[in-house]
């Protein structure tokens, strides 16, 4: 099959809508346009039925006992904000301490920074070099004032899947609420909020071949019953936790996407992992001083993150971006020149944090695309190393750490 360009291998930033999802959504834009809160006519009943069916599909995917435990939001960022701020406001009298990690995605980190300004105390548990959070480090961070533990299910850059069940057990033991950001893990790794002791779970549709603009927050109703203060006021929809007219077509699409994930996850995960492993083997066997980030055996099946010593991430992407969409942990586009805080937190040297490339595969990638992207990546790395003064120095046997660099 002929390759079609550009090739998309950035599926941890977003995914294309599955055509089956689009098909399910379409009637809800036109003939089935009712408001799910209209209780007194068939248009409303039809819309409410569709939203509840979608809720049920999502509940099954995460093992929730009751579909009512799912609150639709505008996406992962809103879900995370609602979980943190909702708990913080509602449980403030019980305590003002929150435990989270240094590798959470920006929404999780930034909402904590805001809560700190509002008088909460936040402990950011460090990450181990393999990408895992040590459960004992979370245990050690807990105090009598802790009201919430939040640890992401799987990381957006390195794909490492945390020991969520152990953290859930710890939270139960200590009577603390447990939130997990599962935006990257949903539909990719098995999730069971009951056996894993999850009280709150954030997710989004656009990373599971659903539409952009809709997400959900799982809010446990029993053992314990979690109460949340809403982010904004209004008609009291979604059990009073999230006012606003539900985007019915998006909810339906999210439900259909969840249903497809549930049916296809085992086979799709195995297929993507095989393609990912092929890409990894190709690159690591041809490029010296390329380092795999994150623990290989506890990883999302579609994730591959490699740091290429002596070349800068953005320049690698520039060499590929006409034909292949990838992502780099390097944020040279920001004035601060900050490298990936996730890769840096693993204890890697700062220049390796500037050199990380993330390949993330999706449902529609092919073996031919994997071969092409692997080959082109190898070529671009070689070309850039021929241009790299650091590679030249290293090849001459100079220890880069022995040079007194003049940082700007």
């Amino acid at each position, binding site marked *: 099959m002929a390759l079609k360009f550009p090739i998309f291998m950035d599926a941890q930033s977003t995914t294309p809508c599955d055509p089956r999802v689009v098909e399910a959504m379409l009637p809800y834009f036109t003939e089935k346009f009712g408001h799910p809160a209209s209780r007194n006519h068939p248009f409303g009943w039809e819309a409410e039925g569709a939203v509840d069916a979608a809720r049920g599909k999502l509940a099954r995917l995460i093992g929730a006992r009751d579909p009512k435990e799912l609150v639709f939001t505008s996406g992962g960022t809103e879900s995370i904000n609602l979980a943190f701020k909702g708990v913080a406001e509602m449980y403030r009298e019980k305590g003002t301490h929150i435990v989270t990690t240094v590798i959470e995605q920006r929404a999780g980190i930034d909402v904590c920074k805001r809560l700190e300004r509002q008088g909460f105390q936040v402990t950011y548990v460090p990450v181990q070099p393999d990408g895992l959070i040590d459960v004992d480090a979370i245990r050690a961070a807990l105090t009598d004032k802790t009201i919430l533990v939040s640890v992401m299910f799987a990381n957006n850059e390195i794909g490492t899947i945390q020991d969520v069940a152990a953290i859930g057990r710890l939270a139960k033991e200590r009577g603390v609420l447990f939130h997990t950001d599962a935006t990257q893990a949903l539909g990719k790794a098995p999730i069971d909020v009951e056996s894993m002791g999850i009280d709150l779970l954030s997710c989004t549709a656009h990373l599971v071949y659903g539409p952009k603009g809709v997400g959900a927050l799982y809010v446990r109703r029993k053992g314990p019953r979690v109460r949340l203060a809403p982010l904004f006021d209004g008609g009291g929809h979604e059990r009073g936790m999230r006012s606003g007219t539900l985007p019915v077509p998006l909810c339906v699409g999210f439900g259909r996407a969840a249903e497809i994930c549930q049916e296809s996850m085992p086979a799709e995960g195995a297929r993507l992992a095989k393609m990912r492993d092929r890409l990894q083997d190709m690159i690591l066997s041809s490029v010296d001083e390329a380092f795999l980030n994150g623990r290989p055996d506890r990883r999302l099946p579609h994730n591959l993150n490699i740091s290429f010593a002596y070349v800068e991430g953005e320049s690698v992407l520039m060499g590929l971006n006409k034909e292949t969409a990838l992502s780099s942990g*390097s944020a040279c586009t920001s004035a601060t020149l900050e490298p990936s805080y996730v890769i840096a937190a693993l204890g890697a040297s700062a220049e390796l944090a500037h050199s990380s490339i993330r390949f993330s595969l999706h449902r529609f990638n092919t073996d031919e695309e994997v071969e092409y992207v692997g080959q082109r990546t190898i070529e671009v790395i070689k070309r850039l190393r021929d241009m790299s*003064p650091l590679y030249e120095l290293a090849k001459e046997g100079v220890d880069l750490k022995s040079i007194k660099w*003049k940082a700007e």
Partner: protein
Amino acid sequence: MAYSDKVVDHYNNPRNVGSFTKDTPGVGTGLVGAPECGDVMKLQIKVNLETGVIEDARFKTFGCGSAIASSSLATEWLKGKTVDEAGKIKNTDIVNELKLPPVKIHCSVLAEDAIKAALADYREKHASVSTATASK
């Protein structure tokens, strides 16, 4: 962020990539930036000791596409200039030529620093030569 055509051209067809042996007469070397900041440039000039004109230049850069383009452009501009003229190249000239956006201005600053460092290294190594030519 889209790159300007000139940045893309320098990235795809970098001019004067490579190295001179550091202790060759007439060669000045500048190494600026830091790996942890994500940018390191090595820029070298080869000066005709008779005329004081830069006859050739080379670079190697670890950094983003704009950093590579800034140093590639710098080597082009250096060739044919005297050592004194070369010292007048400003980072703003590079910004204008490559149409660098504000977040990439530091790349041009680093290129100017690399030029200055290469010139300083040349002057230091060839102090006796330049005084000799000046006294003529």
